[in-house]
């Protein structure tokens, strides 16, 4: 190994250390604060003199005014996320099957519309969406949040799935038709199994999108028993003397499930989503 190679390696290492620190700073801070006892809250220390799990205990036992409905809210987050995942998968897989495999008339128009919807920043639609949910009588119910998130998840889902669906050999469908398969059978027995990897990627995408949503959850839901954990975290900000350590512990609990899910399905996510996100 020449000196030059060692130098290059050292430079890479240095860059690696910088990236490592940059990535972990706020996560480290969140973790440290969540294990800092409340008496040391305002010390601003890099590591607490007496690390403790008392904040997590407070969260689990719902031992604070802000956390009275913690388990209910955790359940709400999970319920909304799973519903959004399932409904998005149903809507996007049926739509792409019709567009890409059955080549239904007007399919191209629909996929163009979906793509245009994908490019609308959700925050820009917040006010009219709120009004429309009022018209439908869904305000302050979790279905308003679920449907809204499905609306924002499915355009991207359709776009990514369509690209994969277009690549499946068309002869498969033809062969099945010759054997007398109905479109419904082709969908169930050929399309869904072959699309499974990208369905996993899209399902994970929709699940995480819904779990992480803050703005719409906080606009559309209001009762303490209905809100998701994301909104509950935001509530801590309403006062200046909020128990920040407990907030950080709650945040850590809230962040753990999506992180775990992401890493379990990472294989699918990276190939599935980067292929769809941008084509040069």
């Amino acid at each position, binding site marked *: 190994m020449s000196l030059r190679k060692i130098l290059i390696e050292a430079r*890479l290492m240095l860059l690696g250390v910088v990236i*490592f620190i940059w*990535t*972990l700073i*706020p*996560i480290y*801070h*969140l973790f440290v*604060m969540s294990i800092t006892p409340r008496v040391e*809250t*305002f*010390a*601003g220390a890099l590591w607490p003199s007496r690390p403790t799990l008392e904040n997590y205990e407070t969260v689990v036992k719902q031992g604070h005014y802000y956390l009275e409905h913690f388990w209910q809210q955790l359940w709400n987050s999970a319920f909304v996320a799973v519903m959004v995942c399932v409904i998005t998968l149903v809507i996007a897989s049926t*739509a792409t099957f*019709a*567009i890409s495999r*059955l080549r*239904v*008339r007007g399919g191209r128009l*629909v996929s*163009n*519309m979906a*793509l245009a*919807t994908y*490019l*609308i*920043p959700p*925050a*820009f*639609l*917040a*006010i*009219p*969406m*709120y*009004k*429309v949910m009022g018209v*439908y009588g869904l305000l302050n119910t979790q279905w308003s949040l679920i449907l809204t998130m499905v*609306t924002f998840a*499915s355009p991207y889902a*359709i776009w990514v799935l*369509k690209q994969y669906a277009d690549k499946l050999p068309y002869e498969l469908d033809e062969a099945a038709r010759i054997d*007398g398969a*109905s*479109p*419904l059978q082709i969908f169930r027995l050929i399309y869904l199994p072959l699309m499974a990897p990208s369905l996993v990627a899209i399902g994970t995408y929709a699940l995480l999108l819904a779990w992480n949503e*803050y*703005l719409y959850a906080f606009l559309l839901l209001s009762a303490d028993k209905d809100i998701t954990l994301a909104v509950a975290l935001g509530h801590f900000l309403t006062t200046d003397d909020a128990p920040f350590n407990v907030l*950080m512990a*709650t*945040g*850590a609990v809230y*962040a753990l499930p*999506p992180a775990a899910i*992401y*890493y379990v399905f990472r294989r699918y996510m990276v190939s599935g989503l*980067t292929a769809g996100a*941008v*084509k*040069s």
Partner: protein
Amino acid sequence: MVAVIDVQAGEKAPGRLSQEAIWGLIFLVPYIVLFLTLVIYPVGYGLILGTNPKSYVRLWTDPVFTRTIVNTVVFLGVAVNIKLFLALLLSGFFAHEKRWIRWLSVIFILPWAIPSIPTILSFRWMLNAEWGMLNSLIFRLTLEDGPNWLLDRWSGLGMISLVHIWKYLPFWTLIMLAGRLAIPKDLYESADVDGASPLQKFFYVTFPSMRNLYITCTLLSTIMSLGDFNSIYLLTGGGPADSTQTLATLGIRYAFGMSEVEVGVTTVVVALPVMLPLLVLMLRRMRKGEQP
């Protein structure tokens, strides 16, 4: 049996075609219903709410609005460009085939994989002027008070951009990495044969191959960052004194903070002349990439 006969009768057999067409429509109905009820209707509703001339007068005479426009432009200009340039550079780093770099990439993706609310709140607390970790550290090292990171318009916007970049850099790096790995290896090999330096390889091989992707990313990221609500709302809340609002948060402030729904919608409508061309440009690019 029917299907067999139809296939033998040829492509234009009316029975089969109509059966397929009917099924196609049935499969398409769920999305069309969703699209009409929850995209077309709210968009139309919004456009109608945004037709009141008084709202426009109200906006142009509100100093907060003009300041917000400037903020939005600065935020997009700074955050999007720094983020994507860093992503381009880092994609080169992560393209190295080394075990420890692969492990680092697993950690590097964390900001994107975990929800933004806890991490933004963590930033917010860390940057607190009086008792945040950063200023405590500065005080311990220099015996002087650190700056009021979030209580000043420009440093507040700077911190918002920082948080935004922290959150979204991994995603764009992944995209750029995918683009970089798609560059044919023999281009680099022949550059090596010609004795090109790493810098030359970047300028004459990497960048030309990725220029198109880079532009697409810039457009897409601009549109998406325009809608970044969390980085502003959860970090500074648009404050102090509404000095760090952007278009994503200002509409919400009018509509839900001040009960001026029409004015809130109008802030978005005002952005349409800039947004629509971006959107059309982006649509064209994505469509083109789709059919190889």
